[in-house]
């Protein structure tokens, strides 16, 4: 299935109520430095494009860039790492968000039941732990709240290592937004918000990937 670039994925989902952190899409090193200064350091820099689905595996994400020099160097390296098959590429400049907890949310087209929304415990062990809950699109806020209750790892959702409990309403917004996007746009066949970093209790999608029908 074709995938949208991170920036296009976010634009599409944001149109249905999924909230993303402020970030800038730029094409040159100088613009990246300027955007980073506006957002405030440290920042994250990513190489994006319609042909790039798995940035992390290719080393196209640079985290915690603390000043203009670091941003300039990372921007130059990422642009140089683009391959011809990537097509048109750009740089995404985003604030560096930190949190000890990661969730994952997404959309999946099930053969039997059609479009589904998922919420799960994220991070590198997500697939091994597989603490997830699914519902069929469309979902109500009650359904979304029950998805949160369904997760086995409830301790992760309360006060955690000095961070406040996860903002359930904000998490419900994310799930209902995903459902609304799938309901409104029939071309969507899958989506990942991975990770959804819990920043001071608020779930923030720092990456997005939307799969569309060919």
């Amino acid at each position, binding site marked *: *299935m074709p*995938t949208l670039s991170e920036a296009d994925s976010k634009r599409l989902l944001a149109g249905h109520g999924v909230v993303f952190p402020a970030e800038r899409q730029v094409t040159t090193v100088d613009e990246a430095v300027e955007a980073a200064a506006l957002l405030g350091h440290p920042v994250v820099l990513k190489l994006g494009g319609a042909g790039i*689905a798995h940035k992390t595996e290719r080393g196209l994400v640079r985290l915690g860039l603390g000043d203009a020099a670091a941003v300039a160097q990372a921007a130059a390296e990422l642009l140089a790492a683009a391959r011809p098959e990537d097509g048109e590429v750009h740089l995404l400049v985003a604030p560096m968000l930190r949190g000890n907890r990661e969730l*994952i*949310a*997404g*959309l*999946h087209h*099930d053969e*039997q*039941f*059609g479009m*589904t929304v*998922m919420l*799960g415990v994220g991070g590198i062990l*997500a*697939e091994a732990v*597989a603490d*997830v*809950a*699914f*519902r*069929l699109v469309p*979902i109500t806020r*009650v*359904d979304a*709240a*029950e*998805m949160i209750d*369904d997760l086995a790892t409830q301790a992760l959702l309360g006060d955690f290592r000095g961070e406040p409990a996860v903002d359930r309403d904000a998490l419900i917004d994310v799930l209902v937004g995903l459902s609304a996007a799938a309901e409104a746009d029939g071309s969507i066949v*899958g*989506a*990942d918000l*991975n990770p959804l970093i819990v920043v001071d209790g608020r779930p923030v999608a720092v990456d997005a*990937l939307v*799969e569309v029908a060919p």
Partner: protein
Amino acid sequence: MSRHPVEAFRALFEPRGVLVAGVSTHPGKFGFVSLHNILASGYEGKVFGTSREPGEVLGVPIVASIDELPDGEIDLVFVCTPAPANADLLRACAKKGIRAAFVASAGYGEAGEEGQRMQHELVALGDELGMLVAGPNGQGVVSPPARLCAQIVAPYPPAGGIGIASQSGNFVSSFMNYAVQTGVGVSRAVSAGNAAAVSIPDYLDFYADDVATEVALAYVEGVPDGRGFFERTRAVAQRKPLVLVKGGATAGGQRAAASHTGSLASDDRVFDGMCRQAGITRTATIEEAFEAAATFATQPLPRGNRTVVLTTAGGWGVVTADAITRSSLSLTALPDDLRQALDGKLPPRWSRNNPVDLAGAETRDTIPEVMELIVGHPEVDAVLYLGLGIQSNQATLMRGGRFYPDHGLERIVEYHERQDARFAQAAAALSERFDKPVLTATELAVTHPTNAGPAAVRASGRVCYPSANRAVTALEHLWRRAQHLQARQG
């Protein structure tokens, strides 16, 4: 909605007369067994039979042709004839005013291309004749309110509120065997067979509005139309509890997918989420399913999850507290005023917390009085009562021993049995009075179902759970449904 009118289901479950087509004189054949079961279970309508060899079987005159039967007296035909004969048979039945058929005959969709073709024709014929055609390749239909046991297997369960629909005939029997065991009865039961024209959701639709049915209980394997299944079962579960077991839950593994979400989506996880969303009570096992259904049929829904354990057996109290703690029920701390009230009834060695462990401190009236204080307290939503029948078990040993009835044994045996029966009756009466679930559990329900304690629970129309853990599981199903409904009110 089902494409079959309610009247057609009435013809299936409450027929004025039944015809067995393909009656046999051989007591091992379906054509004999089905006729036998209809007659032996006390069906009160008229019973007719057809066979290529006319005569009399089990006192029923058997005719060669349907044309010889009266018009308008028969609603249901139970079909045991070979598949190729059935099209003509059903046409003749329709002319006699028969509105429903249960086709037990095999040789349809499960039997290769020719069978599939005949099954297709069977469905089309049912539509053409306006006849509800259940099966084919099913075990039968049971409807105790109509004293109907039209099936090729046992048992005939007691009448009650559970409506069963199953893709496996075998599990219809299993559910009904549990009904026989517990005494919590059945309103309707149908083995859907190949479910060619009438699907599990069709039966469930009928149960949802059927006054005889209080709770629906279903077994499914495949779900051909996932969205349709979701929409229809959700509509059923809004009206009545719907308990569901799905076979083959582990069959569908995760598929390779570009997205992480896709790789986390297994058939079972999606199915599970669908059930939660629809308000379906999904269980892992057949016995858990029956017990959940039987509990919905016999106990009120809890208003909250604050659960108190009342026990005369210490270890059971501890283990049950553990089970409650692992569940979504709450092992609520005893409210101060309740603790004080219990202090007034019990000597100081009682547990003074939840579980309420009487620690052998009970006298003649202690248990009913303590139970009333607990069940009646506004901060208690549900009660589990353990330890019933222990004294009656001793009574059984005494009654069967060589010293009985001397040495005062007769008197103590009667006392114990009277007391255990009283305690069981108190549990049921308090549950009704305060509109709260009160569940009783002891393995004696299975060890000695005639023990005065379990026997009195059964006589009260309720389940005596074979273990506290199973009672906790059943109660949690009630609580989850209560939550589902509460979250969606107004």
